[in-house]
């Protein structure tokens, strides 16, 4: 249904209808902005990237061949534009390595987060997402939030599905390490308040 709607939007945009472009922008701006923001880590810069993404979409919409979902094509543009932006700023895309994944207990982690107030929990997760590298953030957002398949993520990031699987495994480890680091002090603080 959503895909059919996107196809109709695209046909109108190719005819030069900017009103339909506005509808498409409204539909996807939050997700594209979220991806850009989690990569460049700054609101103003993310909005600049967001603008570049939709200008690119408008200029190149006739080159979208419908092989993949429109959203996948759009996220690929957003990912590449954010990468270009980071490269221009000479900012790092690298990630740190984590080896102590085996010692982590996710059930315990869930208990920890359950005990924190919703507002604090949201803030803590938001901070953790900010600390992840650009590539980890995109991978995590597309997999957990947007619930894309490994094949779709592979198309967005221009990787093979197997590489995505390996990278996702590593990103999960890094995320878990950050969660443990950030949430344990929160729960201690929480007890202090009580």
């Amino acid at each position, binding site marked *: 249904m959503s895909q059919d709607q996107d196809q109709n939007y695209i046909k109108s945009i190719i005819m030069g209808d900017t009103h339909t472009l506005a509808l498409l922008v409204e539909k996807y701006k939050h997700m594209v*902005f979220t991806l850009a923001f989690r990569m460049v880590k700054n609101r103003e810069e993310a909005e600049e990237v967001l603008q570049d993404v939709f200008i690119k979409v408008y200029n190149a919409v006739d080159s979208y061949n419908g092989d993949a979902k429109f959203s996948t094509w759009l996220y690929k543009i957003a990912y590449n534009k954010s990468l270009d932006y980071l490269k221009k700023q000479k900012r790092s895309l690298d990630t740190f390595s984590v080896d102590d994944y085996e010692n982590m207990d*996710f059930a315990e982690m869930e208990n920890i987060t359950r005990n924190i107030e919703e507002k604090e929990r949201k803030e803590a997760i938001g901070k953790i997402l900010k600390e992840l590298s650009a590539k980890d953030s995109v991978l995590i957002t597309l997999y957990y939030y947007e619930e894309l398949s490994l094949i779709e993520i592979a198309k967005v990031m221009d990787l093979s599905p197997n590489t995505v699987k390996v990278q996702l495994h590593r990103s999960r480890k890094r995320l878990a390490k950050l969660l443990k680091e950030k949430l344990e002090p929160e729960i201690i603080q929480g007890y202090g308040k009580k």
Partner: protein
Amino acid sequence: MEKNKEKEFDVFFSKAIKEVGMESPSLDFTKKLLAKIEVKQVKKTHFVYKPIITKYAWGIIAAVFLVVLGYIVTGDYQSNMSWWSAFNLDLKWHIKLPEISISKTYIYCFIGFTVFLGLQVYLIKQHHSKQFSLR
């Protein structure tokens, strides 16, 4: 064992990240974007590229060129020709014009040079089109 841990983590983090939700750009983002696109569109329509020689004309030029080239290479062509005798004008009384004789080597060099010049013009045009394109 690790697979189970991953699954536990996936369930937990899916819920957690959805709780955080999406980020939002500024309220007037769409308005600003459309204004920018419209300005670009106006600029584009002001500077629409129109070739001086149309594709159709280039086709005719190429056909004529190939016919002449074919005639020179394979046809009954005299390398020593007198241009003025073709007009059948008796001008010898008033002015003396030199007889022009063109060797085959010269003609081949000239044709080769012209072809490469044309190719160069095309390549330079392509280079500049790419440099200034909006995409």
